[in-house]
């Protein structure tokens, strides 16, 4: 196939070493997205409880965190943690991280990947926390009053009554944030995380078939995105009571 004098050669991307690189990159992208996603989720729950139920100073810390991490570029945060963060670790820890280890039979993440997970987890947590808070605000005040009047503590009311409803309200925006996490992951190539885009540019410098490589990378992202979106949407916790307003009889 030829277009404007350019000769397309898909085997230059889909065979041999370039294919190995791409498959490895896909694994790293998945690892980065999933681990950062888990970290962001846990941190977002902490931020949410700070903002909703914490004492004043902790509420301010939660709000300050969200302002800081939502309003600075992820690219800057990645470079900050990589060049500014890792040096604070004691030398023994840095040596240990750089040495390479096995964990459950698979390679322990490289320092670069760890910094990538860390940065993207912190960044995404701020967005998840805000989506969750919007979901909480959509729950009528009477729900909290009903729970407190029954004798539930603030925390029990949040866990048993408010959060399940908030999660149902916020689910689609939350899915969007996890998709953003996947689509932001190529920024981690700036700190040499060997994810899909890093491998793609390596193929480009290796055999100059960048167009094919970027096309294949786009298709991989598209497929990953469609699968992630479908899986998360199917996990929607909205209980039947919130999903429909149909009368049973």
């Amino acid at each position, binding site marked *: 196939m030829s277009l404007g004098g350019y000769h397309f050669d898909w085997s230059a991307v889909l065979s041999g070493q370039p294919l190995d690189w791409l498959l490895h990159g896909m694994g790293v992208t998945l690892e980065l997205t999933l681990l950062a996603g888990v970290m962001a989720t846990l941190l977002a729950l902490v931020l949410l409880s700070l903002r909703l139920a914490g004492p004043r100073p902790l509420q301010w810390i939660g709000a300050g965190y969200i302002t800081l991490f939502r309003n600075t570029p992820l690219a800057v945060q990645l470079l900050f943690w990589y060049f500014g963060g890792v040096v604070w670790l004691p030398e023994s820890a840095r040596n240990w991280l750089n040495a390479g280890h096995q964990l459950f039979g698979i390679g322990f993440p490289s320092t670069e990947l760890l910094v990538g997970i860390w940065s993207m987890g912190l960044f995404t947590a701020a967005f998840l926390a805000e989506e969750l808070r919007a979901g909480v605000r959509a729950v*009528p005040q*009477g*729900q909290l*009053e*009903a*729970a*407190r*009047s*029954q*004798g*539930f*503590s603030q925390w*029990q009311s949040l866990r*048993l*009554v408010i959060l*399940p*409803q908030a999660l*149902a309200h916020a689910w689609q925006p939350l899915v969007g944030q996890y998709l953003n996490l996947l689509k932001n992951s190529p920024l981690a190539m700036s700190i040499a995380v060997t994810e899909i885009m890093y491998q793609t540019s390596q193929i480009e410098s290796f055999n100059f078939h960048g167009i094919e490589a970027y096309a294949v990378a786009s298709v991989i992202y598209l497929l990953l995105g469609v699968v992630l979106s479908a899986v998360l949407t199917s996990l929607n916790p*909205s*209980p*039947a*009571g*919130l999903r*429909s*307003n*149909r*009368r*049973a*009889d």
Partner: protein
Amino acid sequence: MIRFNNVQKHFGDLHVLKDIELEVAKGEVVVICGPSGSGKSTLIRTINRLESIDGGDILIDGHSIYDASRSLNAQRQQIGFVFQQFNLYPHLTALENITLAPRHLAGLGKQEASDLALGLLEQVGLSDKSRHYPSQLSGGQQQRVAIARALALKPKILLFDEPTSALDPEMIGEVLGVMKSLAHHGITMLVVTHEMGFAREVADRVVFIDRGQILESAAPQAFFSNPAHPRARQFLNQLLSPLHLAGETV
């Protein structure tokens, strides 16, 4: 059992509860009525501290509800509250709405809590609706589930805040019927309502409140046949014949 000692409350400049003195005996059914904005909802919401007070004290069984050595959540478990807007938990079925507190606050097992809830649903005439979500129930059915939920921890006191005001007229009867069936079985009931038929038939006492002050507290018979305070008289006239202009005397 419940005693208000010179209770005061302000919303900004508005003196919403003024020098409230009220004693309610154990098992008594008291209807609280008055014009809208008179402070009657605020009055019952102070009993389980959904509203705070600025002065005076409220005692239950001789103990101040503000006694710091008594847990607020434990106190609230002894007081069932029924809201005007039902406030059922929409993500839970009728049964789960009722079992939530017994399971998480009283430590009942799943089966035990479920048996309790089914018994309560039967008591409010809704045994066949246990698996329905609130959105699948009519207003009257939702309020009956809400009453069953309020009974789930076997409270000593039941507070009703305009329980039928959000209902279509044809559903008011079923809710009042359930409330009537609960009266005079040991639970102390305070009911804010405009349903004067219920007051006349079920209440031991009617308390009339206007502009934050208790103006009259009398047996229903006396209150309806011969209200002592002119504002109570005016209120009753408006309520019983709404087409009369305010202030007009019969």
